[in-house]
Structures are given as structure tokens and as C-alpha cells.
């Protein structure tokens, strides 16, 4: 459904998807070389869902996210350098090295924070929507979450609150069919997560997550509904991650068949947008130009991150509290 995207949006969509893809490829390489500590969870394969959704949001709309975090602030327009520096734990990181991969946040683009505890941000997203409503603002909050999160208590409480108070929140599930190694068919009591919407008085929509245009169209509709004061929506994007749950240094957990992975790769979200781009005048050239620019951007982000310093010991206590004078 990329035809629903105006040409300018389509091009920006291609750019953001390429940013996610190249950024993530670089993260995989750097993590395997020990340059990025801790766990990283890669979004390759899910670019269509994230970019399509973010492009349906305004600059001052909010997003919240998950441990599979990098794509979300990138999709919302965050600069790559501070994100990469944060992954490396540098003081120039967007969170000053305090959060790392699973807690990226860029308040300048409305990214309120990725969170590592599954489901934990869903009530927070309701709160951002509540805040917008109390301030009579037209802002909306889009909450990214996975399939596993839809089974947590926090999910049900948050959606019920959003439903009773008609909060301007779009709950968007990136259903990639697995929560770590557990397939959704063994964890979710209903066939589609979207059916849970009716339990909370909101519309539930299923979209093809590999088609950025389809996701864009669904989120545009949900955002309009929210801004009109008609309340929240639940959107389930059927998508897939090509990589493991987390980068595990090659450890093979063997719970997905090669055939399944290959089948999903045949509908690569970037290829779907590119196919639409090349139909436009100069489309192929624009694609190549974007790819060149993105590679330079990512390389520059890595350079910036590698050349940045780690935080000093004196920064350990920074930002624990807003007001000073606390503690022994």
C-alpha cells in the first residue's frame, strides 16, 4: 500500500528504513567485536513497521518502546551519532551513557524512552496521553510493544485505562511471532493480538508489517481518531525479525526453521518501498543517493562514538535526582 504515501513521505520512509538497516548492521559488527557491551536486540526485518508508524506522527508526538529499541528513535528522526555513542556507553551518548541499548531516549524528537522490562512502558504511554489530554494538547503517544508484552498485566491495565479515559494513545504491536524463543501460538490465548482491543473498548486493526505504506495508513487513521478525542487504538503489525532475539555471538537456539526465515526474507520491507520508489521519476537515482548518504551518516556516527570519551567517575551520581543534597 505504498501508493498511499505521498512521494515526499515515501522518500523519507526509504531514508529512515535504510538508516535502521545500516545502523543495525553496524551494531551487529561492533557488538561482535566487543565494542558495544551488554545485550543488543536487532530490528532488521521490522523496518517497515517502525518507519511507517513514525512517519504518521508529528514531531511533537511521543513514542515509547521496548528492548528492541534502536529502530524506534531512528524512525522518529533522532540523530545517529548520540545513539551510537550511547550504545558504546560514552558520555556523549543520548542518555550520557547511563542507559545503553535498551533504554535509548531522545526527548528532542518525542522519544520518551525504550524500556527493558517487557510491558513496563505501556502504562507510561497512557500517562503521556493523559498529560496531553489534561493540557488540551493535540499530541498523541504511540507505544511500540511486542507480542510477548500483550500477555503482561501492565498491558491490560494500560489499555483499560486508555479505553475508559479515551486517551490519545496508539498501541502498536510489532508481532514478530516470537517472544524470545516462545512462539505466539503457544503464548497468546487468541489468534491475533488485535482481538484484544475489543476487551478495552477500542478498535483493533491487523496490518501487514512488512508494508510500510499499510502501517502508515493504519497509524494515520489511529492518530486522527486520537486527535479528534475519540480515544485509543490497537494496531497489530504482522512482522518478523531476521536475527536472533538478541545478538548471542552465533549461538544457535534453533527454534525457527530456515524455511520460515527465508519465506519472510522474500518480502523484505526495504525492497517493497524501493519497488515503489523506482516507479517514480528519478526514483532509482534517489534510492542510490539515499543509500550513499545513509552509509556516510552511519560511518560518521561510528566515528563520533568511537572518538568520544567514557563518562568520568564524577558523573556516576549525575541526574539521580533533580534536586541535590541527597544521600550520605
Amino acid at each position, binding site marked *: 500500500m505504498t501508493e498511499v504515501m505521498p512521494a515526499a513521505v515515501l522518500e523519507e520512509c526509504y531514508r529512515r528504513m535504510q538508516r535502521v538497516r545500516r545502523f543495525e548492521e553496524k551494531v551487529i559488527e561492533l557488538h*561482535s*567485536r566487543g565494542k558495544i557491551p551488554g*545485550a543488543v536486540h536487532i530490528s532488521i526485518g521490522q523496518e517497515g513497521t517502525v518507519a511507517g508508524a513514525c512517519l504518521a506522527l508529528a514531531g511533537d508526538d511521543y513514542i515509547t518502546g521496548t528492548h528492541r529499541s534502536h529502530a524506534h528513535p531512528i524512525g522518529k528522526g533522532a540523530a545517529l551519532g548520540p545513539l551510537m555513542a550511547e550504545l558504546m556507553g560514552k558520555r556523549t551518548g543520548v542518555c550520557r551513557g547511563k542507559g545503553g541499548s535498551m533504554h535509548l531516549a531522545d526527548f528532542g524528537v518525542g522519544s520518551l524512552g525504550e524500556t527493558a522490562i517487557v510491558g513496563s512502558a505501556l502504562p507510561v504511554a497512557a500517562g503521556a496521553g493523559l498529560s496531553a489530554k489534561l493540557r488540551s494538547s493535540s499530541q498523541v503517544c504511540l507505544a511500540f510493544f511486542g507480542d510477548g508484552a500483550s500477555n503482561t498485566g501492565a498491558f491490560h491495565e494500560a489499555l483499560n485505562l486508555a479505553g475508559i479515559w479515551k486517551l490519545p494513545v496508539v498501541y502498536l504491536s510489532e508481532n514478530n511471532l516470537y517472544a524470545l524463543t516462545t512462539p505466539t501460538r503457544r503464548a497468546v490465548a487468541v489468534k491475533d493480538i488485535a482481538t484484544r482491543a475489543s476487551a478495552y473498548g477500542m478498535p483493533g486493526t491487523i496490518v501487514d508489517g512488512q508494508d510500510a505504506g499499510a502501517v502508515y495508513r493504519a497509524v494515520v487513521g489511529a492518530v486522527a481518531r486520537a486527535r479528534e478525542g475519540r480515544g485509543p487504538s490497537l494496531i497489530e503489525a504482522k512482522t518478523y525479525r531476521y536475527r536472533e532475539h538478541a545478538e*548471542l*555471538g*552465533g*549461538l544457535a537456539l534453533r527454534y525457527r526453521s530456515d524455511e520460515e526465515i527465508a519465506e519472510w526474507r522474500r518480502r523484505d520491507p526495504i525492497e517493497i518501498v524501493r519497488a515503489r520508489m523506482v516507479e517514480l521519476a528519478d526514483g532509482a537515482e534517489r534510492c542510490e543517493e539515499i543509500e550513499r548518504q545513509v552509509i556516510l551518516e552511519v560511518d560518521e556516527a561510528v566515528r563520533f562514538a568511537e572518538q568520544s570519551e567514557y563518562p568520568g567517575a564524577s558523573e556516576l551520581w549525575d541526574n539521580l535526582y533533580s534536586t541535590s543534597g541527597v544521600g550520605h
Partner: protein
Amino acid sequence: MLVDILLPQWGMGMQEGTIVRWYRAVGDRVAEGDALCEVETAKATDDLGAPEGGVIAELLVEEGATVPVGEVLGRITVD
């Protein structure tokens, strides 16, 4: 160009691993992903693959040794 063979973290909480046995030796040519050694950790025992293709330049850890995550186990000369 030399590339390090690092002991990766196969899951949250993994702190170290034991090199059970080396499958390859210094001087061997390997392709990216070829099994280099068997590693035993608290949670799993599995093969560690070559990070890139090339010739094994050195192996720094003996069979039976337990080393922390991130340790350089050896190096490969990349073509």
C-alpha cells in the same frame, strides 16, 4: 589485517566460558562461520565460529582454560 577471535556473550548473565577443545590449528585456513572450538558455559555448550575468513595466526588460550567474556582467544589474518 589481524582480527581478534573473542569469547562472545551467549546470553545475559554469562560471565565466562571454558574452551573444551580446539577444532583448528595455527596456519589453518577458515571461512567465516567455520567452527573453531567447542565452548562450554553455565547455560550452553556450543561451537564458536570464525568471525571472518582467513588464516589462523595465533591461538592464545589452551584447551580446558576458563576465560571471561570478551577475552581474546586468538587471531585470524584476514585476506
